[in-house]
């Protein structure tokens, strides 16, 4: 399972990096849109994270803090 997870990540990473093209600052109009930002739905994402944290045995990945709840 662990090996599979690593393999998936490494495959996607090299596939994506291999496709990187030079992007000049004046070509970043699309990338600067709110919808193209990581965590663009900050509040919804925070609520989802708390919801899943209380229902599943694993968490993390996006934020840099724990759940902050007892979640019994």
């Amino acid at each position: 399972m662990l090996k599979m997870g690593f393999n998936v990540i490494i495959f996607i990473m090299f596939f994506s990096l291999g496709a990187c093209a030079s992007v000049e600052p004046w070509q970043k109009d699309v990338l600067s849109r709110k919808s193209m930002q990581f965590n663009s739905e900050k509040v919804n994402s925070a609520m989802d994270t708390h919801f899943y944290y209380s229902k599943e045995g694993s968490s993390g990945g996006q934020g840099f803090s724990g759940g902050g709840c007892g979640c019994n």
Partner: protein
Amino acid sequence: MNKSVPHLSLKSALSTACCCLLGTCAHAESKPWFIDLGAMNYIEQDRNTGIQLLVNARRELDDGDALSLQLDFDVITGATPNGASASNVPQSFTMASGIGEYQVDANELPADDSHMDSRMGFSLLYESTMSGNFQLNYASHISMEFDYLSLGAGMEFLQNLNQHTTTLLGGFNFEYNRVHPVGGIPTAFASMEPPGVLQPRSATSLARRQSGAHIGFNQIIDKNSLMQIKYAWANASGYLSDPYKILSVVDDINNTQLGSTLDYIYEGRPDQREIQNIFFAYKRNFQGDVIDFSYRYYWDEWEINSNTVDVKYRYKLNHQYYLQPHFRWYEQSAAYLYQHSLNVSEPTPDYASADFRLAAFDAYTLGFRYGKSLADGREHSIGLEYYTQRGDSHPNSAVGLQKDQDLFPTLNTLVITWNYSYNW
């Protein structure tokens, strides 16, 4: 004759001119805060109902720094599984306070239907731009429940490279939690006593600590797509058990009553848990539509491994409205300490828990969000999702009468969310 000329610095004059040309002058000066409001209502079939309210306020400061404040409140009420197995006869359980009791019908999932909990949290994030290419973020939070306190702080750096096409990031965080459950901390593997009798307690409260670090990068792939990769490590220590969870001890000796419940004992988990995960996210624009894909692989010292795939597609209906279908798939393996119940003939293990969250299961989320972008940056959206969690209802380890019971009842949840953001 001297005429009075208003003094204007070159910098402020240029700023004013630029702002007014862009048409954002009044807006930027009079509405410096970006307010993001959210609400979630989730309804679990035959179990809990919860409400979350969240307010996030972000303000960009004059020197390029930004301050974010977040206030959240949530309340949960209903029936929460207590860890005991369903039985062919009615069951009685002592409440956490040790004073009263609650009954569960035969063949029903044992759950404490008097469960009610509320939480209030406050967090602060300060984004400090040290130079054009380097940023430091400082974060802290406090969260309070009547039986739980959590304090945390963290720091993150972001370094831009290659004309802002690559951003390296990394950080660390610490968290201190205090668990002070109703009735005190139960002694692991001690029997639940009848109401009114002194319950086995080892302390009134105990600490739980967590420290973590992460490292990763964001990469612009082309003018329409970008990706993120992060690796995170954390170590939790201290009291990691759930003070309200118990296990059934069943008879696996007497052939006439195989699988019947003989006792209820409090669970016990290790006081250490090392956690790691790798997270990958990818976003791509397709002529105004946006696909948002992420994958997380997680593994920990308790032998839980999980895979999470999350896909959202923001479909632009017109210049104002969008529809965003969402699919999430999650699967985890069981923690080595998970047991749906204990057999009376076997020695008490070092650690055991019947918490479904530590069992092996698959979970799916399917839903959509419908949103509208309004004038002057306002946005309004509503979401509707269905979440289901399925595990092994009839494991091979079930004994006698347990084979007729559902030892992992499916969890079905309806989730409704609302979001409104505006400049203020």
